[in-house]
């Protein structure tokens, strides 16, 4: 069956388990799926869900696409930047949070949407964010 040896699934599994794909693991996966390491590296660095180093304990992604934009995603991002004292695309000093923008996540009917550690939060506002973050500390 084809799906058994697909690089993307292997990388995805490791990312989910560890929060990143180490160089060592990348080599191992390349061997398992019978692809050259260079090709696996080139593919792995393409996808926004995959990272080759651990970014932080929690990953916060704010949708910045049209429907979320119309419902104030810019304001949400600014609020998060201020609250976490970090710029989008970076991790907090204590490596607790990594804040980033993301393309539409298919929750446009409940915009603005954010994703934290793969879990969707919809119709977010400042108050909701405070509540969510308190639980994550």
């Amino acid at each position, binding site marked *: *069956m*084809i*799906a*058994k040896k*697909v*690089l*993307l*699934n292997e*990388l*995805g599994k490791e*990312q989910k388990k560890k929060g990143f794909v180490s160089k060592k693991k990348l080599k191992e996966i390349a061997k398992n*799926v019978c*692809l050259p390491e260079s*090709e*696996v590296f*080139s*593919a792995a660095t*393409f*996808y*926004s*869900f*995959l990272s080759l180093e651990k970014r932080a304990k929690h990953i916060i992604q704010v949708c*910045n*696409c*049209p*429907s979320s*934009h*119309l419902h104030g995603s810019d304001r949400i991002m600014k609020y998060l930047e201020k609250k976490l004292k970090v710029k989008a695309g970076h991790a907090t000093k204590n490596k607790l949070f990594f804040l980033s*923008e*993301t*393309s*539409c*996540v*298919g*929750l*446009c*009917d*409940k*915009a603005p949407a954010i*994703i934290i550690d*793969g879990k969707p939060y919809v119709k977010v506002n400042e108050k909701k964010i405070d509540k969510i973050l308190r639980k994550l500390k």
Partner: protein
Amino acid sequence: MKEESLLFKSNLSGLKAALSKNPSSVIKIVKKSGLRGRGGAGFPTGLKWELCAKAKGEHLVLCNADEGEPGTFKDKLIITKAALNLIEGIIIACHAIKAKNALIYLRGEYSYLIPTLKKAIRKTEPFLKKKKISIGIILGQGAYICGDETAILNSIEGKRPEPRKKPPYPAIHGLYGKPTLINNVETLAMIPLIFLKKFDATKRLCSFSGDLKNAGVFEIREGKQIGKLVEKAEPIGIPKALCFGASGGIIPYDPCMPLTEKNIRDRGAWLGACSIIVINHAHSIVELCESIQKFFVHESCGYCAPCREGNERILEILKRISHSEGTMHDLKELEELCDFVSKASFCALGKSAPLHVITALRHFKEEFVRRCR
């Protein structure tokens, strides 16, 4: 409209009806139904099946569930509410083109739908066993370009997901060089309905979002007045414009306009995957364009220069204008750049990326001019 009632549930009866027919009559029936691909390009489904079936080699079926167009969430609804319809459609496709292997490429953001898909696959187990068909799931990892029917092939093969030159078309030379039938979720979910005579080619699912109280997926009939549809979704404020996903363009809101592909095309836009984002008077078209442009800069795969560099430049200019730092010269350059990127880019992503700016400049130019020195 209640979302549950949107799709007629086949409950295996469509599958049974289709499997009782031989492959060539299945293809004939799909051709006759008038079903066209719902992913955006609108290619006649039956014809695609026929082309693929005729190609030599081991046939494959690939369900494109990498719904990534901003403003689109109908495939998510179909999988959530009617995954069995989809799996039935996949099995019928396998039967029609004599494929033993099928894959579902699910966008990474929808990973929580995997159990739903697996449950539906389990329900069809007897059919899969009898026909020796296996269905695998591949989870995307966050890349819009993988929705392209050739980039998705490279993605599955473990290569960098850049688009391939067409022809050869995937139906003839697809995954690992094998004839591969690629259809999206909505298209395949319609297949069992055809065999139950419940399919109506004039209706399709539409994702409504934006400045609406009651955003969601609606079933629309071609030709219905857009105002009636928007009213149902309860607009917030007074609607000013409609935006068809990120790549379909922006047109002025005219409640009396019948919703047809032609009407939208006449205004320079494109209905595509049928996503309608409603924008009210409180929002600036310039800022909307800036937000859409950010998306394209992020999602350009970087393979060709016009799209990789051109989209960055378009964003720079849009930012300047949006911050009231642009000039009339910028505006002219913006127009030229958009024209260039749409003509010189390699794949559909780059070709359609500037459409939102082109249509915005056609219909809402004064909003840009007002912000220019």
